[in-house]
């Protein structure tokens, strides 16, 4: 009788308790993915020098302090901005006023005309951040769509689904994300 071993504690429910804790942590941890528009800032300019860019190669977008657009010196609309930018960049009819193209040889794509167009974005200090992001978004969308179209044309698959890195780079080279932001000027005040 004395040699009887101590009765084991029933540990069967331990797993349940641990599971409960586990599920609690799984549910409460918000793995919210940070999303945003990625941009690369230009390095600071030492002395102001005018880089000669032909007028036809520049697509001017201005946003004033009351969030209104001026696209190529005409009042613009955010809804049509994307298509305007696309049309400008690709210059499908080889218009004299739209950007020049340069013949380049790119791996996977062969000889291809690369547009020299640059989108110049300028905003006022009083522009709202919301509007600025909307404009940036529309411009990004324009480039995304152009890349998509080219990707479908050459590889038969959308750019997002393109896994081959060299092919991605080829398309990025053929359609460079040319958004330039002008040096800030204090025009409208805060």
């Amino acid at each position: 009788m004395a040699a009887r071993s101590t009765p084991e504690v029933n540990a069967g429910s331990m797993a349940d308790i641990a599971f409960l804790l586990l599920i609690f942590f799984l549910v409460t941890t918000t793995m919210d993915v940070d999303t945003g528009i990625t941009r690369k800032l230009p390095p600071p300019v030492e002395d102001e020098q005018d880089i000669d860019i032909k007028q036809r190669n520049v697509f001017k977008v201005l946003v004033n302090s009351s969030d209104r657009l001026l696209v190529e010196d005409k009042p613009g609309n955010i809804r049509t901005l994307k298509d305007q930018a696309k049309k400008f960049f690709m210059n499908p009819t080889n218009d004299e006023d739209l950007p020049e193209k340069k013949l380049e040889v790119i791996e996977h794509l062969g000889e291809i005309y690369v547009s020299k167009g640059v989108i110049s974005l300028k905003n006022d200090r009083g522009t709202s951040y919301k509007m600025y992001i909307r404009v940036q978004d529309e411009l990004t969308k324009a480039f995304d769509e152009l890349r998509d179209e080219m990707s479908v044309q050459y590889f038969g698959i959308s750019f997002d689904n393109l896994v081959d890195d060299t092919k991605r780079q080829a398309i990025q080279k053929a359609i460079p994300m040319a958004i330039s932001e002008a040096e800030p000027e204090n025009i409208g005040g805060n």
Partner: protein
Amino acid sequence: MARFKKKKASGQQKINTASLPDIIFMLLFFFMVTTVMREVTLIVKIKAPEAAAVQKLEKKSLVSYIYVGVPLKSGIYGTESRIQLNDAFATVNDIQDYIIKEREQRDEADRKFLTTSIKADENTRMGIITDIKQELRKIGAFKINYSSRKIYDLKK
């Protein structure tokens, strides 16, 4: 001296589940450790703007955040947009120091991949954002990300 062993009752042998809690605990600890709860307590109000063409911000350990918005306690701190770095209000002049400190915390090899995420309220004026961008350019933190919520295009 014959000893008779009692024959065990033949039937299904129970699987020993004693180690099950340990396994689950291991999973639990894994999740507890890996979930990064490094988010600072916000003292400015931020409602990120919406955008469709957004990219995921990868490698969160290589991101430093700059928050811009109206202070939550606007009764004390006013309704002007302010910059928040770490847990305190800051001015535009503090950004360079902040970026330097953030860089020093990282491995030397990782430093060039450091991204600065600007988390600004949608009603912020661009003036303050432009100032931040100028400071970032001066210090050489060129990779930036305008934090925005993803919306889906209905047309697509």
